[in-house]
Structures are given as C-alpha cells and as structure tokens.
C-alpha cells in the first residue's frame, strides 16, 4: 500500500478498488454492538487541522478510534506563518511525539506534500487549499458504487465552483482511474484555465447535461465569490446552475444527487432536492468513516 495519500492520483485502479472493498468490510463493523477493531492498537494518529472542519475531523477521529489507534487532535487555526510556529517546526514536534500518521487539513495547496518531506510517518491529505481532498473522492466513489453497483462506465457531472474545489480535483482523478466519465459543469469563470488537459468533458449548460448522467455532484459555492465577479449574484447563479426540483426531473430515474457538504441550501441545491430520496448526502457522511477506516487500516495496519 502507498506510504502517503496526498492526491487521489496516488492510487491506481487496483489500490483504489482495494480501499473500497476494505471499506465495505469496515462498514459492517459499524453495524455491530461493539464498533471497534484492535487493528491499530498502540499506533498514534494525529489530526492536524489548520482549518475548521468539524465533519472531516470527526470522521477521521471516529475512523481511527474504531481501529483502536490513539488519536491526538492538533488544531492550529490561521496560517502557520502568522501564528508563529512554522509548519516545519510543527512537523518536527509531531515527529518527536512518534506520530504514525498525520491527517492534515490546511488552507494552502501542497501543505501535505511539504509535511511528507519532514515526518517519517504517513501523511493523509484531508483537504489542502484548492488542491485535493482524496478521502472525499474515495467516499464519493464508495457511495456511487453502493447505490449504482459499479463505477466503470458511469457518467458523472460535477457542477459548480470547480476552480476552487479540492473535491472536484480529487474526484476527477479518482473517477478517471476507476473508469467513469466525468463532465464538469459551471460558469466559464469557475472552470480553471488549463482544464483542457484534464480527462473530462466540460459544459456551461447544466440542463443539457442532466438527462445524460448517472450521478450529479453539486459543489459548494461560496456567496463571496460574487464579490470577485465570478458571477453576478447568488440568485443568477442559482437560476443557471442550482439543482432545483425542475432540474431534478430532467435526470434519468436511476440517477443520484451528491454533495460533499456543507450545503448552501437555496444556492447550489434546493432544500427539496437535498432532502429527496435521490440524494445520497447523509450516506456520504456515514460512508466517510468506513472509507477512512479502510485507508488507515491499509496504510498503517500492515507496516508493523
């Protein structure tokens, strides 16, 4: 298994499938009365979070604890530079504490790559800036496979602020690895220059894309983006790219709706859609723990 999980591209098809298969086994643990395995007893997992992210931190914490690891939560809000201690010094501290794995969330793209050069343990990227969030992509793939029975040959639309989305980047890479076809949809201002080189189709027209997809994944769009003229107003964004009931009706019957959370209800997704049976949003959260258990198990379990 890989030493670090910095990018969804670190996993080949076999490795990714192994994570998803292992996650299915881990999910069965959640159904037991005692939701705990002894696998990582005596191992230390540090959650190093430079950004607020209650849901991701709790998910990793629950995953590590269900594998009997010792968990240390290290919250360091704000940029490391402005707050005094550098990322490197923090890394050396964690190294001295004997961290077997560091789960890092950071506002700067590439921070986990830097960290991986400074610690001996494994580094798991839990979201870095506008770069990647590989375990989110894994749990999304797991959810799709659970709902639709396969990944290869699926058509997935990822809709919204692709430019600033680490979820989109990781999903594009992982879904491509696993044989799904991805279409990125959004206003041209929110699709990155350079997207031409990605293994995806792109579209500015959500209505045209919806009838062709098996999965539509809505990305969170921050209202503040309109201050930078990425779009004129929240209302216009919702009108052109929001998933409302009328657009939901354009989807094939079997298609599902995903969102990585947290949602802006009424912006990129209407409340009735978010709460509909087509939505996998709550399952995604539950699957997150199983997938992160699988990743920790595969990365740390065999190495002793």
């Amino acid at each position: 298994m890989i030493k670090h999980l910095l990018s969804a591209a670190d996993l080949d098809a076999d490795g990714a499938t192994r994570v998803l298969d292992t996650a299915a086994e881990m999910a069965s643990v959640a159904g037991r009365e005692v939701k705990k395995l002894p696998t990582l007893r005596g191992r230390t997992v540090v959650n190093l979070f430079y950004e607020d992210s209650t849901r991701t931190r709790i998910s990793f914490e629950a995953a590590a604890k269900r594998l009997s690891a010792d968990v240390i939560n290290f919250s360091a809000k704000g940029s490391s530079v402005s707050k005094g201690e550098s990322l490197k010094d923090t890394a050396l501290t964690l190294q001295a504490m004997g961290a077997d794995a560091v789960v890092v969330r950071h506002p700067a793209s590439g921070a986990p790559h830097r960290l991986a050069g400074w610690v001996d343990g494994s580094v798991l990227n839990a979201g870095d800036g506008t770069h990647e969030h590989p375990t989110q992509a894994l749990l999304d793939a797991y959810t799709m496979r659970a709902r639709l029975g396969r990944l290869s040959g699926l058509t997935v639309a990822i809709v919204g602020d692709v430019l600033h989305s680490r979820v989109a980047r990781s999903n594009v890479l992982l879904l491509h690895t696993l044989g799904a076809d991805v279409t990125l949809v959004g206003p041209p201002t929110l699709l990155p220059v350079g997207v031409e080189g990605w293994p995806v189709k792109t579209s500015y027209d959500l209505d045209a894309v919806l009838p062709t997809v098996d999965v539509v994944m809505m990305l969170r769009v921050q209202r503040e983006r309109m201050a930078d003229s990425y779009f004129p107003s929240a209302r216009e964004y919702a009108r052109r790219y929001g998933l409302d009931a009328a657009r939901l009706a354009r989807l094939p019957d079997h298609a599902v709706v995903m969102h990585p959370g947290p949602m802006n209800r009424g912006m990129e997704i209407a409340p009735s859609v978010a709460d509909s049976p087509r939505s996998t949003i709550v399952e995604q959260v539950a699957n997150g723990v199983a997938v992160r258990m699988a990743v920790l198990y595969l990365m740390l379990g065999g190495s002793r």
Partner: protein
Amino acid sequence: MTGPTYLLRGVSIVGGEPTDLLLRDGVVARAGRGLRADERIDADGLVALPGLVDLHTHLREPGREDAETVESGSRAAALGGYTAVCAMANTDPVADTAGVVEQVWRLGREAGLVDVQPVGAVTVGLRGEQLAELGAMATSAAGVRMFSDDGHCVWDARLMRRALEYVKAFDGVVAQHAEEPRLTDGAQLHEGDVSARLGLTGWPAVAEEAIIARDVLLAEHVGSRLHVCHVSTAGSVEILRWAKRREGLTGRPSRVTAEVCPHHLLLTDERAASYDPVFKVNPPLRTQSDVDALRAALVEGVIDAVATDHAPHAVEDKECEWAYARPGMVGLETALSIVLDAVGPDWQLIAERMSRTPARIAGLAEHGNDPAPGTAATLTLVDPAARWTVDPNALASRSRNTPYAGLTLPGRVVATFLRGVPTVLDGKAVR
C-alpha cells in the same frame, strides 16, 4: 594603483585565438607573447570575457541582512564572473531617496568586489502613488540612471508616462516589472495546466504582456527609454519584436530594451509539482514553449540582456507552504553556466548579452569592454570545459534558495578582475 601585475597566458579573448594579456595598473597593458609579470595564470583553454554586468540584483541591504548583504552579494557576483551589479531598490528602507542610494553605493565601494550601481525607486515606498525624487538620486554620489519599482509594477498609466518623461532630463531609464496587479491578485504560479492541477492561483501571461504592450506605446509616445525586466512569456517576446521593428523604421537608436533571467531560460512550471517554494519566483516559471521562445529571442536580439534577478531569501521564507513563501531565487553564481547551457559556447553572444549590452543600458562606461590594450582590466576568465555540480551550501550568497541544487552545469569562472585587482582566483573568492 600599484598592485601586482598579472600575466594571463594563452587566453582566448571572447573566443578568439589564444594570446597573452598583461594586466598592470588597473588596465590591460599589453597583449602578445614574451611578456613578464609578478603573477602568471595559465589560461590555456580559458576564455576571457569583459566582466559580466547584472542589471537586476537584490542585495537586501539595508533591511534584510540575514538574507544577503552588499558584501556577501558582491562576493557571490564576483564568483559568478560579474564586475558590476545593479542593486534593486526594494530594500527596507526603500531606495527612494538620495540618502539610501548613496548608502548602498558606499557599501559597495567598501566591499570593493564589484561595482555596485544602485537602482532608484520610481515611486515613494514602491507604492505606485507618487514619484520619488528621481533627480536627487540622479545627481547624488550614486549617480542613479536606472529607476525601478521592481517587485511591484508601476501600474498607473499616467504615473508611468510621467516617470518615462521625467527621466529624460538626465538620460535615465525606467525598468518596469510588468505585472498588471488586478490580474495577479494572490497569484502563485503560471496560469495553465499545472496551476489548474496543483490548485494554485494562476499568474496569467496576459498580466505581463498587457503592461509591456502599454509601456512600449507610452515610451514611443514620449520618446523615452524603457527597459523591461525579467521577460517570461512567448507573447512578451512577440510584443518586443513588434516594438523593435517599429523603432527600426524610425531610424532612431533602440529605446526599448529587455532582459531575461537564466531560470526562465531553463526551468518550467512543472517544477512546482513538488510544491517546494524554491521554484517560486515572480514572474513565475512558464511553459516549455515560453522557454524556447525566450532562448530564440535572446539569440536573435529581441531580448537584449541576461539579468539574474538574484533574490536571496532566508531559510524560513522558503521552508514553508508554497503560498506563504517569498518569490525569488539566487542566481549570481550560476547565471553564466545556465546561459552557456542554454545557448552553447557562443562567446560573442554571451559577451554581448551578459556584459556589453547591460553595461550600455545601465550607463556603466567602464564595463562591457572587451579586454584589449588600454581598456580597464575588468574581465572574467571562464573554463568552458569544466563541469560543476551546484551545492547550495557552497554558495557565497548568504541564502541557499537556488533551484539548481544537484544539477551539473557547464563552465566555471576561474578568475575575475576588477580594474586589475583579482576578486576571484582559482575559482575562489580572494577575500
């Protein structure tokens, strides 16, 4: 000046037939065979170049003496074959007054390893709001002729026009850092495939090209000299080619000049994939097609000079997250080797782009002259056959932020003379 005399035996002057050169009393006294001197240097196989001149050096003093000083930067320059460097104005305090430029000039004289020619800021505090006292800096002991807000663009078109006009009174030149700031807010890396993949905010080529296009038109309109710093894109080359063609039609001497940095002649944005900020620089590393266009433009003469943009940074400003790191690379000690690698051993071209033309742009008459009887003995001796491996810890600069660590490069500076006095001998700094 009565130091020892030196005899350079069997030296090739800018690639010509081997001869002997006698350096005495600060000048090249004689050339030919059968000469005697106090010290003999076996220069068989070595090439003598006019001492290199760098139009773009950050020496960091005053303000960031932990990263570089005038003396440490001068030593690095001498080791790189330089005899003159133009010290950029973005010090702390900013070199925007006669007092600060004179301080830098005096520190350079005291170090005595290269001629340090201060560059004055165009605007007060580099803030782009109000002209600095350009005339006072011009008439100071430092004799400033080149003005630049480097690190910042003089983005206001009216202010740029005024600066271009004003410096005509003392044959000054404005050296522009071409970067439209509204297009580069938060920018980290060339906008393209790699920035999209790495999730780093893009620095679009158009932000450079739009300013260059504007400035060549402004310079033509007011009949002033413009120098474009660190050209980094193929599109900029096209605009400069267009500007020079127009100049050719008027029959007047060239009023627009441009420089390229060694790193833009070799490295591409793919280097950022490591997220190691040693590859972070402003303007950013571009694509291979930009690199190819810049090399061709340097050979063709659309780009007039190589300038290092030597930008030392303390360890803590680079050993961090990419977005928090300061942009810049040290370059004085590697520039000649990188250019040699990029354009090959065309010594006339190298002398033109790294010494004669930059000396003319900076107004340094004592520099940029091919070694010949009667000229100042301000020259550098290069071993074209030597290859060396870059070790950051072996650099004379106080900073270690070279992007070439571990790279094996052609060409080694064996000796550098400044007015007949050696600053480098046997590839080592004399002091």
